[in-house]
């Protein structure tokens, strides 16, 4: 039998590569939800239209993950006091995780502003992304 392909429609699927997300919010079946907006990690935060690189995910040192826009908006509020909404530990980005690399600059400033004043002794050191990543 001879088959002739007239057209081919390639379909791709993707999801964020999250190492060790056993603490993630699991509410609707198996899909992991952002603990702030309660939309899937692979979906978008409430202000974005397109998922993926336009609305990336970040992974916390505490293994709680959020859309970067969601966590940034939270950390910008005075109530946040720099803490993770889920476990109330000081929020910082997990190190050596590929998807965090691009977001360090974005979160560095917010995190510095929300740290307790005692940590602000050496502003220069604080500005290093490394410090924030720990």
């Amino acid at each position, binding site marked *: 039998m001879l088959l002739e392909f007239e057209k081919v429609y390639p379909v791709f699927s993707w999801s964020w590569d999250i190492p060790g997300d056993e603490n993630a919010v699991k509410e609707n079946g198996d899909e992991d939800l952002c*603990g702030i907006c309660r939309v899937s990690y692979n979906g978008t935060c*409430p202000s974005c239209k397109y998922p993926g690189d336009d609305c990336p995910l970040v992974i916390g040192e505490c293994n709680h993950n959020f859309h970067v826009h969601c966590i940034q908006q939270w950390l910008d*509020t005075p109530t946040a006091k720099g803490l993770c909404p889920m476990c109330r530990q000081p929020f910082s980005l997990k190190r050596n995780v590929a998807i965090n690399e691009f977001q360090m600059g974005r979160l560095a400033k917010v995190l510095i502003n929300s740290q307790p004043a005692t940590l602000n002794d050496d502003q220069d050191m604080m500005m290093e992304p490394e410090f924030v990543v720990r």
Partner: protein
Amino acid sequence: MASLPKRIIKETERLVSDPVPGITAIPHEENLRYFQVTVEGPEQSPYENGVFNLELFLPDDYPMEAPKVRFLTKIYHPNIDRLGRICLDVLKNNWSPALQIRTVLLSVQALLASPNPNDPLANDVAEEWLQNEDNAIAKAREWTNMYASKQ
């Protein structure tokens, strides 16, 4: 009116499909951020057998900002004032976007089970609570019968 964020829609749906025992929250038709709430007084508290009416509003910044909650039924409680305003940490400084309408209302119910006269909002009630707890509890029970009885 701006469209309702997905999170609020989801929370509302779940409040209906999977309600918290002893708590109801129904949005007003003309304002889906504004809920009519009832909370049953916890067992073995002076508020037992009472049903309390409350109102809850989700401000524009929710969930970055806590919901606003107020008692509409008169209640004798050291952390709830005469206008129904509630002194509860998760409604103010300890708010977190990981909390939801249902967890907030559970905290309100828990506050009824454990009044905290050391952090009062209604000073006269707190004083009575600290000086003569039996009297205060009797009064709370009396008010519950008077204003919050099930109909």
